[in-house]
């Protein structure tokens, strides 16, 4: 049974009728890593913020975000506050800007616990130590008394993860958790997340632009372009038989064999409000036909469990 379910989620500006996320639907199952992939500005981070109920004021949402059958978008701020951190934890991209620079990290982690449970100071301290050990922080007794600036990027990200899992949430949203880190530290953090997921039976929504990370960590994957899901499938599906021209474009942009010219996607992503009619990718698509710009194609199933938002999905197949 699905833990978190998005049904037709839309996000738009309050002041103008421009949708930045449109008709977004997917399910996150227990103990599963769901990868959400897309380039800057495709709406993947806004999606995460809307699930957490922390969208900036100038956006409004439509559709349904169900957590265990309860629609989060209809909850009031107090109810949402109970869920945030307790049922859904979140790890952000830049650990330096997401931690408070004037508070000790131990205090910040303990706060995540004390804001949801009535615990004594001593219990909160013990839980903090336990959490720092769980995220494999070197010398946790010393580190809990330090400030964020005294730590490296990798250690700060461990603190962020400790805060996010402090209340054993059912869902963890990780928004580009390793983008600011070096490859060797990235590998350590991803391994840590995988370990925590297995031991805690957490479901993880992994947001990234790196297809390599998706292949190695996710079970299901969805590709976003201009606020829409353009392809969704079990992870092997998009690497063995991609069915949308945008996904194919991403794959062909990755440097592969030397001397084989890359085939980048021409142009750049249009601003919201400047998108072409019909299929939003049609103006950059090399498979475009006149019909593509008539109506926006729906996300439809091409093979078992594999969905694509392309009217020519049956002809598409990468690598062919």
């Amino acid at each position, binding site marked *: 049974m699905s833990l978190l379910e998005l049904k037709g989620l839309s996000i738009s500006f309050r002041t103008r009728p421009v949708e930045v996320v449109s008709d977004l639907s997917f399910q996150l199952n227990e103990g599963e890593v769901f990868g959400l992939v897309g*380039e*800057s500005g495709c709406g993947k981070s806004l999606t995460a913020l809307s699930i957490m109920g922390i969208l900036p004021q100038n956006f409004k949402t439509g559709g349904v975000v169900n957590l265990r059958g309860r629609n989060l978008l209809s909850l009031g701020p107090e109810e949402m506050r109970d869920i945030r951190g307790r049922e859904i934890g979140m790890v952000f991209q830049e650990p330096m800007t997401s931690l408070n620079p004037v508070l000790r990290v131990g205090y910040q982690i303990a706060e995540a616990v004390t804001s949801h449970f009535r615990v004594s100071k001593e219990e909160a301290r013990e839980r903090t130590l336990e959490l720092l050990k769980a995220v494999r922080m*070197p010398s946790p007794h010393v580190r809990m008394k330090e400030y964020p600036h005294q730590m*490296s*990027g*990798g*250690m700060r990200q461990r603190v962020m993860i400790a805060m996010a899992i402090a209340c054993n949430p059912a869902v963890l949203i990780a928004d580009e958790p390793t983008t600011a880190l*070096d*490859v*060797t*530290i*990235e*590998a*350590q953090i*991803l*391994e840590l997340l995988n370990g925590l997921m297995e031991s805690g039976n957490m479901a993880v929504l992994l947001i990234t*632009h*790196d*297809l*390599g*990370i998706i*292949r*190695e960590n996710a079970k299901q994957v969805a590709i976003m372009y201009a606020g829409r899901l353009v392809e969704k499938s079990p992870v*092997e599906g998009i*690497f063995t038989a991609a069915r949308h021209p945008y996904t194919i*474009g*991403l*794959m*062909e*942009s*990755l*440097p*592969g*064999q*030397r001397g084989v*010219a*890359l*085939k*980048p*996607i*021409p142009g*750049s992503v249009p601003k919201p409000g400047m998108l072409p009619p019909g299929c939003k990718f049609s103006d950059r698509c090399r498979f475009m036909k006149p019909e593509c710009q008539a109506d926006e194609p729906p996300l439809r199933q091409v093979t078992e469990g594999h969905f694509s938002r392309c009217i020519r999905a049956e002809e598409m197949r990468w690598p062919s």
Partner: protein
Amino acid sequence: MALLEVKALKKHFTVSISPMRHATLKAVDGIDFSLDKNRVFALVGESGCGKSTVARLLLRLIAPTAGEIRFRGENILGLKGGALKAFRKSVQIIFQDPFASLNPRMTVFDALSEPLKIHGLAGRAELKDRVSELLQSVGLGDVLDSYPHEFSGGQRQRICIARALAVSPEVIVADEPLSALDVSIQAQILNLLLELKERTGISFVFISHDLRVVEYLSDEVAVMYLGKIVEVSKTEDLFGSPLHPYTEILLSSAPSIKADGRKKPELKGEVPSPINIPSGCPFHPRCHRRFEPCERVVPELRQYKGRQVACHLRNPAI
């Protein structure tokens, strides 16, 4: 003769760790390499390994603590006046962040005509044609009167490349030129760099942490760790069979879209501070293959089967 040659180059900074105490930060600690005409030499390593300091040294934006940098056989540290100006024309740089490296108050025309004026490469009448030509060569249209904020990241990086090309340099130092860009835009810029290399015969010093890009683009690679080069070799050799344990770990850490089910060797800990570099081999505290001499003896970069590596495992004398 090599176009650009670096010998025993060092850059040490003095940093204050408390009001009364100072320490030496060895950002670059004795490196050698050379770049031939129309080649791409890549420097790879993690944050803090000194690769960007090398970029600034090569341009003579900062002065080294020791060592020499020779351009066409001449030590650039002794250059003055006209000779220095000529050197500045020959070696150009592209930075990582195209948002920070263009003056927001200068139009594209201003930004691209400035180097032409400084070096007297075009008369007033030809300036406009020359700038249009440059923009064309990086795949931008007629945008002479636009300001940087009107462009996307990829387009700005094209403008930065055009600015570097304006003086027809022989070497371009590219410091993480793709890191701020999305994958599909990275591919556009990568194609552009390769095309420029083919068309103009420019050489590149390409600084990056992205191994996939380095494997695709470069002819030769040097891996840096804590201010030292730990391995240099032809790109195919390095990626085919890494000699240094650090290279091995870097290569296997990078997430890959090929499902090969390989187990990653675990790399413990983090890069130590360059203020407090470990004794012996700087990599020994994190190395999965360390043995007795590693914490005592500093391994020198030495020849091994026609390649160069700084590791005791590859030294038959130990």
